[in-house]
């Protein structure tokens, strides 16, 4: 008998714990010729804002040791085009579709959430609180527990869906933010978003990225992500989704054992478009080899008090 990979993330029911991370899987369709998205636990689409955004000046990407920096600048088609052009295809999927949303003000967050209300095929919203907050001079909402909580509340008021809040790692104590967001009513947390970084071109003596700084992702950040997931799982009661440098089934297992109930794969999709499917197959294989009937059994097993 095949091991059971079903998992419950708060109110969200997933056929397996493997999701695609926002911004690395487009609007889903881009990968459909190469792998069957219906096999995924869920698809998290590119961050959607109220208005379309062209994104940052190029170059937007630079490779780093075991990772990459991106400064896409949250380029996206905007809420209206998302609903009219991207959503119809996503609605044909037989897996959870999660929409990542963001805004530059509290109102923008709320408006995007409101715009997606009632669309039955959207399983949940994921709030990206890591984008720069215009009102506070570029520091992100996600570095301030108060603001993070207010964004969460604003979105909750405008939606009928489970709300996942995606946390930034660029903070002194991520548990403080996690707790604030939990208290504000979030149904789940996902972490981590990218670490801020820079690469300089020694020929031009300028930062490589058009935006100067970018977000570090990929295997390089995996130990940091795993540590933060391990920490946050101990500090909140709501479920946690692990993100950061996950490429292999063994990587995913580390996060599940640390207490994550699901994982998101980001940069791994670029390395191999079938990374997520390899991970799903690997989880099945692991459970079978160890005689574990359900993946739920391994969640949190690396926590001290388990």
């Amino acid at each position: 008998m095949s091991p059971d990979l079903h998992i419950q993330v708060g109110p969200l029911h997933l056929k397996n714990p493997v999701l695609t991370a926002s911004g690395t899987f487009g609007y889903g369709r881009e990968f459909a010729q190469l792998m069957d998205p219906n096999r995924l636990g869920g698809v998290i689409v590119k961050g959607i804002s109220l208005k379309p955004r062209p994104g940052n000046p190029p170059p937007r990407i630079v490779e780093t040791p075991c990772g990459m920096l991106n400064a896409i600048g949250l380029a996206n088609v905007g809420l209206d085009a998302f609903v009219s052009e991207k959503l119809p295809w996503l609605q044909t999927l037989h897996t959870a579709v999660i929409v990542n949303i963001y805004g530059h003000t509290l109102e923008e967050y709320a408006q995007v959430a409101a715009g997606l209300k009632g669309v039955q095929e959207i399983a949940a919203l994921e709030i990206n609180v890591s984008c720069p907050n215009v009102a506070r001079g570029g520091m992100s909402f996600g570095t301030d527990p108060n603001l993070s909580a207010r964004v969460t509340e604003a979105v909750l008021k405008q939606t009928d869906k489970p709300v996942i809040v995606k946390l930034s790692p660029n903070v002194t104590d991520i548990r403080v933010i996690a707790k604030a967001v939990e208290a504000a009513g979030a149904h789940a947390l996902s972490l981590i978003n990218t670490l801020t970084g820079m690469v300089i071109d020694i020929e031009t003596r300028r930062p490589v990225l058009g935006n100067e700084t970018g977000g570090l992702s990929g295997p390089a950040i995996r130990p940091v992500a795993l540590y933060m997931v391990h920490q946050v799982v101990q500090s909140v009661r709501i479920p946690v989704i692990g993100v950061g440098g996950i490429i292999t089934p063994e990587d995913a297992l580390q996060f599940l054992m640390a207490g994550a109930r699901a994982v998101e794969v980001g940069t791994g999709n670029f390395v191999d478009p079938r990374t997520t499917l390899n991970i799903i197959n690997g989880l099945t294989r692991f459970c079978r080899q160890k005689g574990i009937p359900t993946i739920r059994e391994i969640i949190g097993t690396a926590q001290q008090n388990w």
Partner: protein
Amino acid sequence: MIEQHAEVTFNDRVAADTYLMGLKSPDIAARAHPGQFVMIRVGAQADPLLRRPFSICGVRKDGGLLILYRVVGRGTRIMAGAGPGTGFDVLGPLGNGFDFPAQPGESLLVAGGMGIAPLSFLAQRTGQEVQILTGYACADQQIPFECLGLSHCAVLVATEDGTIGHHGRVTDLLQESGNHIPHGYAQVYACGPIPMLMAVADLTLRQGIACQVSLESTMACGLGACQGCAVPAAPGSDRRYYHVCQDGPVFEVGTLDWEQLQPHVP
């Protein structure tokens, strides 16, 4: 669009730091169109992490996919060390290729350095005896035409140091008869460094000659998903940026904002 593990059938040094690699990739080869590219994963480790994009330089009847590449960094150095039998994961064909020339004799192909890779595939596919202008830094970088299956074409060479052919740039060859594209050419295809493409764009735009260029950009996905490979669209376009992997790599010169294009891929 296919992702497959492909075996290296040969990997020959064809000029200074330049290699022609054959990959057994029948499914990609069967679908390939000149101007399209593939993304190659250069190793199984997490470093180097990202796939490297390469134009398809040709296909063989036996399902061979040809890649012409210059060693410029870590990824291409690893590729150069790969003997026959080595396997690489290859993703492709990606992007939009060239629109084919309408009338024989009317196309002019302009290649700077490795820019010859997609253009020689184009030259082969047209079946026509097209005129190709090629430019290199110096003679030892010149790729023998036989390697590229261009024996049926007319090829002129320029080198920046004058060690072979015209002493100067490939764009000098264009401009020989006064500062314009020689008469009779209705369609220019160009690939090479940005400064060269800028010169070609300038000439063709001014003369109103159709011109398609193939661009480079750092890429993560190659699939239009990450939005990483943005290049600025011409002022007045419906979009601020195009994405090289999805909207290109081949663009009509008029659709790009040449003033904003980064001259340097780091």
